[in-house]
C-alpha cells in the first residue's frame, strides 16, 4: 500500500505506516533485517554512515565549441589532482579537497534505456527496462548497508524524497529498494520526519516485539522437542534453524532496548517544519538538516534522498523556482535555445549550493564521542543516472566524506578521456540514447563494491560488478 502525502499520520494504521514509509525500523524477525554478524557486546566503534542522493534529468553537457562550455559544462576540466570547476560546480570550490568527482561510470543494464526510466536502478543496477513489459528490481546499495548496521541504531535507515511515496515502476519517487526489489516509500514532509525521529515514541512497535518474542519462544520449544527425536547427523542440520531462531531473539532484545531508551532531545525551534517545496531553497535546507540531525544523534546511519523524480511532472519540478524558473525538467530540454545552457547550469548550481552547505555542516561538527568530524565518518554519494540529454551513460557522480574510512578525495577520476557523448538535443535530432556508445563505461557497481568494503561490509561483489574500483 502506498500512503499518500495527503494522509495524516494519526488516521493511519500505525503499523502499516511504519512498514509503509521510509522507516525501516530496527524490528527483527517480522520486518526485514539483515544477515549481519551477531554482536554479543555493544558496538563501541565509531559509526560509519552512508548517505545517497539523486537528482534527475542529467547535467549541462555543451560541446567544447559551444561558448557555454567554458562556464556551464558540468564535468570539471582536467584529471587526477589537477582539475578546475566551471560555474556549475563552483559552490563546491571550497570543498575541493573533501570530494571526488567521477566520470565514465554507469550501470550496463540501463545504458540503452531512455534516461527517464532509470532513477529506479541508480542504486540497484538491475535491468529495470522500459516500455510495455514486466518489471523486476533488486536491493539498493543503501538497503544492503542498512541490513549490515541497521540494528545498531533506532532506525535502520531513513528514506526521503521531494515527491514522496514510492512512485510507480519506472517512475520511482524513491531510490531505495528492499531485498525483494520492492520500492521503499519515501517521506517528504519535514514535520513527519522530525516527529518520528524526536517526538513520538512507538507504542505499536512494543506490541510487535512482544508478538515476535512469543512466537520465537514457541518455535524454540518446537525445535527442542523435534531435535530429541533426530539422529545426531540430522540434529546438526536442524541446528541451522535453531541458530536462526536465536539470532532473531537477540535482535528482539536489541530492538526492545531502543524502545526503552528515551528519544534524543533536539530543539526543533530553528527549523520551519511546515515548509514545502514551494519555497525550494528553504525546503532543501530543511530536508538536509533533518538528515544531519538524524546522523548527529545516531538515530540512523543510512539515509537516502531523491531530490527530484525523473521527467518532471511532480512536486520536485517546482524546485526550479529557486532560480526563477517554473519547471526544472524543461530546462534540460531547452538547452539549445538562447541562454539554454546557462539556465540549466544555473539550476544545477543551485542544487550544488545546498548540497555544499550540507557537506559543510557535517564537516564543521565534531563526531560525538569519537575522532574527527561527522563528515569524516560519513560517506556521501551524489549523482544522476543521466549525463547528456536522456542519456544513461557517464553518470555525473560526486563522492564526499568518509576520510576515516580511507577516502583521500581532492581528485577527479576521469574515466572518459574526452570521449563521452556531449551536446544537447533539438526536436528532429535522433536522441543520444538511441545512438551507439562512443566509449565503454565502467560498471558503476564496481564503485559500490569499493564503497561497501570501506564501510566495513565483507563482500567482493554487488549486483553486476566485475571487481572493485581502485583509485577512490
Amino acid at each position, binding site marked *: *500500500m*502506498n500512503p*499518500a502525502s*495527503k494522509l495524516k499520520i494519526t488516521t493511519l494504521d500505525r503499523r502499516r505506516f511504519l512498514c509503509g514509509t521510509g522507516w525501516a525500523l530496527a524490528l*527483527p*524477525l*517480522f520486518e*526485514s*533485517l*539483515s*544477515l549481519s554478524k551477531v554482536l554479543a557486546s555493544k558496538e563501541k566503534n565509531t559509526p560509519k554512515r552512508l548517505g545517497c542522493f539523486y537528482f534527475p534529468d542529467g547535467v549541462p553537457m555543451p560541446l567544447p565549441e559551444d561558448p557555454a562550455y567554458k562556464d556551464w559544462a558540468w564535468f570539471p576540466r582536467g584529471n587526477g589532482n589537477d582539475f578546475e570547476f566551471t560555474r556549475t560546480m563552483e559552490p563546491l570550490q571550497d570543498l575541493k579537497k573533501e570530494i571526488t568527482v567521477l566520470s565514465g561510470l554507469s550501470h550496463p543494464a540501463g545504458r540503452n534505456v*531512455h534516461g*527517464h*526510466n532509470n532513477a529506479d536502478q541508480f542504486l540497484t543496477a538491475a535491468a529495470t527496462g*522500459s*516500455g*510495455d*513489459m*514486466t*518489471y523486476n528490481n533488486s536491493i539498493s546499495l543503501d538497503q544492503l548497508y542498512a541490513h549490515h548496521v541497521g540494528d545498531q541504531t533506532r532506525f535502520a535507515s531513513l528514506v526521503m524524497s521531494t515527491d514522496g*511515496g*514510492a*512512485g*510507480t*515502476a*519506472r*517512475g520511482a519517487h524513491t531510490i531505495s529498494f528492499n*531485498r*525483494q526489489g520492492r*520500492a521503499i516509500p519515501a517521506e517528504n514532509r519535514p514535520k513527519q520526519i522530525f516527529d518520528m525521529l524526536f517526538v513520538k515514541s512507538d507504542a505499536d512497535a512494543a*506490541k510487535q516485539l512482544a*508478538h515476535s518474542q*512469543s*512466537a520465537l519462544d*514457541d*518455535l524454540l*520449544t*518446537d*525445535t527442542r*522437542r*523435534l531435535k*530429541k*527425536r*533426530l*539422529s545426531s*547427523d*540430522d540434529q546438526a*542440520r*536442524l541446528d*541451522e*534453524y535453531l*541458530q*536462526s*531462531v536465536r*539470532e*532473531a531473539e537477540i*535482535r528482539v532484545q536489541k530492538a526492545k532496548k531502543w524502545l526503552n531508551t528515551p528519544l534524543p532531545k533536539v530543539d526543533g525551534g530553528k527549523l520551519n517544519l511546515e515548509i514545502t517545496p514551494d519555497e525550494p531553497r528553504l525546503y532543501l535546507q530543511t530536508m538536509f538538516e533533518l538528515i544531519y540531525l538524524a546522523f548527529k544523534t545516531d538515530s540512523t546511519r543510512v539515509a537516502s534522498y531523491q531530490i527530484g523524480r*525523473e*521527467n518532471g*511532472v511532480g512536486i520536485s519540478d517546482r524546485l526550479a523556482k529557486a532560480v526563477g524558473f517554473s519547471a526544472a525538467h524543461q530546462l534540460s530540454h531547452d538547452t539549445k535555445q538562447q541562454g539554454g545552457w546557462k539556465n540549466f547550469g544555473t539550476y544545477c548550481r543551485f542544487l550544488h549550493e545546498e548540497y555544499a552547505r550540507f557537506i559543510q555542516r557535517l564537516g564543521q561538527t565534531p563526531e560525538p564521542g569519537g575522532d574527527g568530524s561527522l563528515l569524516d565518518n560519513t560517506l556521501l554519494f551524489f549523482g544522476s543516472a543521466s549525463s547528456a540529454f536522456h542519456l544513461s551513460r557517464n553518470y555525473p557522480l560526486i563522492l564526499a566524506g568518509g576520510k576515516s574510512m580511507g577516502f583521500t578525495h581532492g581528485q577527479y577520476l576521469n574515466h572518459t578521456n574526452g570521449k563521452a557523448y556531449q551536446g544537447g538535443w533539438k526536436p528532429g535530432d535522433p536522441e543520444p540514447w538511441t545512438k551507439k556508445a562512443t566509449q565503454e563505461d565502467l560498471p558503476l557497481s564496481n564503485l559500490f563494491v569499493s564503497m561497501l568494503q570501506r564501510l566495513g561490509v565483507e563482500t567482493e561483489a554487488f549486483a553486476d560488478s566485475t571487481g572493485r574500483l581502485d583509485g577512490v
Partner: protein
Amino acid sequence: MNYRRNFCLLILWFTGTCAGLSATHSPTLEDLRKKGILESSLRKHSNLPAKTLSPKVNLEQFESEIQPILKAHCTPCHGPDKSKARLRIDELNPNLVKGNDADWWLEVQAVLSNGEMPPADEPEMPGLDRGKVMEWLSGEIRTASITRRATGGYSSFRRMTKYEYNYALQDLLGLPWNFARDLPPEAHSEDGFKNSSENLHMSVTQLETYRRIAKKALSRATVQGPKPSVIYWGGTMDEVGKVDWQKQAAKVEKTRQELEGNPEAQEQKIEQLFRDFQKTHRRPYFKNLQNGHTVPQSWSYGGARHALNPTDIPPAVPKSAGHVAIIPQGARQKLVVELGEKIPDEGILRVRVRASNNSKTKGNIPTMQLDFGWQASNEGRALMRVSDQDVEIDAPPEDPHFYQWDVILGDIYPRNSVRKTSRMGSTPSPSEHLRLVNNSVNKGEIQIDYVEVSGPIHDQWPPASHRRIFFESSQSSNENAYAREILMTFMPRAWRRSIADEEVNQKLVLFQTMRNDCETFEEAMIEVLATVLSSPNFLYLSRDGADIDSEKNPPKSSLLSQHELASRLSMFLWCSLPDDRLRNMARLGQLSNESTLRNEVSRMLEDARSERFTQEFVHQWLDMQLLDFLNTDNKLDTSLKEAMKLETILFFQEVLRHNESLLNFLHSDFTMANERLAKHYKLSNIKGSEFRRVRLNQASRRGGMLTHAGLLAMNSSGNDSNPLKRGIWMLESFLNDPPPPPPPAVPEIDLADPEIAKMTLKERIEDHRNHAACMSCHIKIDPWGIAFENYDSRGLWRAEINGKPVDSTSRLYNNEPLAGMLGLKRFLLKNRQDQFVLALTHKLCVFALGRPLTFSDRSLLEEIASSVRQKDDGLRALIMEIATSKLFLSK
C-alpha cells in the same frame, strides 16, 4: 533343363541370402532396441545378495584370478611406471567393504563395461578375462554396498524447497496462488536437483521471510468483514473505441465546417472520407457494422479518456452488436480495454470476451492471450501476461461465444501504485487496463463485440478457503475451544502427522497471549497458524526417531514410519503434503501392506497433482533452466520457447501415462506438439494450441529427447550450435557420466587467425584440443557433441553450414564410429541401454529421496533398475518400483 532350373534356383537362393545378409547389415533402430534388451545384463540380474546374511568379500578370487589380469592389461599405464589419470590400479584396495577405494572400483567397472578401457590403441583384453573381472567386480560392489548401508550414506532430512513450500501452501489453503514469490530460489546440487538435502540451508533472513509469507498467505485466504461488493465493467466496441470514433467524427465535422459555403465540394470531400474509412488495418481496429466504417485503435494513457465506467450492477449484455473490434494476427497486436482505477487488490477478476473467428483462411483457428497493464506517466508503465494458456477462438462470426478468464489479482506485480492516490484524468494516471492479444500462429483474425469484466468474484461467502480454516462449529462462541478445534484440524495437515496434546496446548498458550493484543479472534488465530507454518515441523521433512503412532512401527526399525512414508510419497509424486486420505491410511498403518501401497501410488499418479512431479523432475533432470534463460528474438519467440518446453515435459508425461518404455527417450516414433511447434518442425496439419501426440516418420529426423528443439537450442551459443554443451549435457543427463570440470586456464581460440577462421566448427574443436593436457578429457566429450551438429541453434536440421556440408561424424574413445544423430542413437540403443536405465533410475531416486546417492545405495539401485528392465522398461513401472523399493521404504 534341370540344370538351368537348379541354376536359377541357386541364383535366387544366393541373392535371397545376400538380401538377407544386407538386411542384417543395416538394422533399424527398432531392431537395435530389441537386440539391446536381449543383451542386457541388468535384466538378467538376480536378487541373490538380498538373502545373504553376512556378505563376505572375495579376496581369494582377486588374488588368484583378477589381479594377474589387471597386472597384464591395466598396470602398464596405471602402475608404478606410468599413472595415467593419476590411477594406480595396483594400489587399489580389493576389499571394497573395509577399504577406501570403492568409488575407484566403480569407475573401473564403468570403463570396462563401456569398452572404454583398454584404449583402442592398446592391446585388447580378451573377452573371457574382461568377463571374469566384471563378474568379480559386480559381486564385490553389491556385497560392499549392502554392508555399508547400515553405516554410511546421506540423510534425507531437509527443509522444503521454494516450489514444495508453495505447493504445500496451495494444498493447505485450497488456492492455486503464488504464495512463495519472496523466497530466494534454490541452487542446484551437483546431481542437478534442487531438493537435495546437502544444499538446503536456513538463515535468520529466510526464517523471517517464511513467517511473513505465511501470515500474508493466511490473510489472503481468509476474509474480514462483509462480502465486498462486486464492481462491473461492460463495454461494446462502440464504448471501448469511443475516443477513436469521436476523433473520426470530429474529422468529418471539421471538413463539413471548412467547406460550409461549397456544398458540392463538401459532399465530394465527405464521400472521399467515407470511402477512406472503409479500409482494413494492420493493427487492431473498430468497425461499424452498419456503414462499414473502420477506425484503428490509438490508445494513449493521458487523461484516462479511454476508460470504461464501472457500475455496481451487472451491465445488460447486448443481444447483437452494432460495432466490433478486429485484432489481426501478431503477438504485438493488442486491443486495449481500459478499466480505470477501481480494479480490486485481491480476489478473482473475471474477464469475459464475446468473440469469434474472423479468419479468411478456412481451418485457421486464432488463439487469444490476456495481458494486464497500466501506464501512469511517460515512463511509469508495465505490462504482463495473466493468462496461463492461450484460448482458441473457434466460434463462427455469425454465432460468437463468450470466452472467460479468471485472473488472480493478488499475484499481479507490479500494480499501478498510484491507483488509490491519484485522481482519474490527472497525471500520474491511476488507471489500469487489459489487453486482448491475438497470439495466433497462423493468420487467424479475432473479432470481438463485447467485453465484460467483474470482480472481486467469490462463488461463496465466506469463500471456501476461509471456511477451510474457520469452519462451522458448535463451539465457535467459546474462543479457546474453537481455537483448539481449528488447531486440531490444521496442525495434522500441516505437520503431516498426529499431534500430541502438549503440542496443541503449547499453541493455545500462544493464542491466548496473542489474543490479548489483537482486536479479533481471527487476527490472533492467524498469528498462531503462521507460527505453525514457521515451525520446523512444517518446514522440514523430518525423520522421526519416535513417531507419535509408534505402535504401528517399532522405533528402532530401519524402515520409515507410516507418516514419514506418506510424506515421502507425496513429496515425490505431488511435490507437496499428503492429502487427508493418504494421511489417514498412514495413521491406520495401512501403507505397510504392499498391495495397498501400490494402489495408493496408482491413485497418486492418476491425480492431477502428479503433473507437478513431471514438471519439476523433468525440468531439473534435464537442466531446463538453460531454456528458461534463452533469449527470445524474432525467430525464437515466446510462443515457440514455451512450446519447446512443453514438448519435453508432456512427452515424459505421455510415456508415463501409458507406461511406455523409457527407451523412448533415446528414440521414439512420436512426439508431443501443438501448432506452433509443428510449424517449427515443418510438420503439417497440426492446428491449435493444444498439445497432442504426433507420429513421426524417418524423414522428420526426430524422435526421442535428443532431437527435441528446446534441448538443442538451450545447449547452443548465440547463433550457433555448441557441441561441447550438447556432449556434456548428454553425458550428464542420459548416462550419468559427467566429465570432470575444465581446468582454470583454458586458452581462447584465436578467431582472428585466418587459418582458424577457415575451419569448420568441428575442425576448430579438433585443432583446439590438440594439446596433450586437453586431449585426455576432450577425447571423451567432443565426439558425443559432434553427433548433434546437424541441428542448429534452434534445433532445426541443417545439411550445410556456410556452404560446406555438415560433418557430424566422429569416433569415440574406443574408436567406435558415430555417424551423426542416427549413429549416436544406434550406438546408445545397441550398447548403452543398461547404462541409460541405470542413469534414469539414479536420477529419479535422487529426486524421490531428496538426497544424493552413495556407494552404499548402489545395490538397491541396481535391484530397481533390474526389475524395471524385466518389466519392459515401462516408465510407470519404474515409478512404482521405486516407490515400493527397499531404498524408498528405508530411512
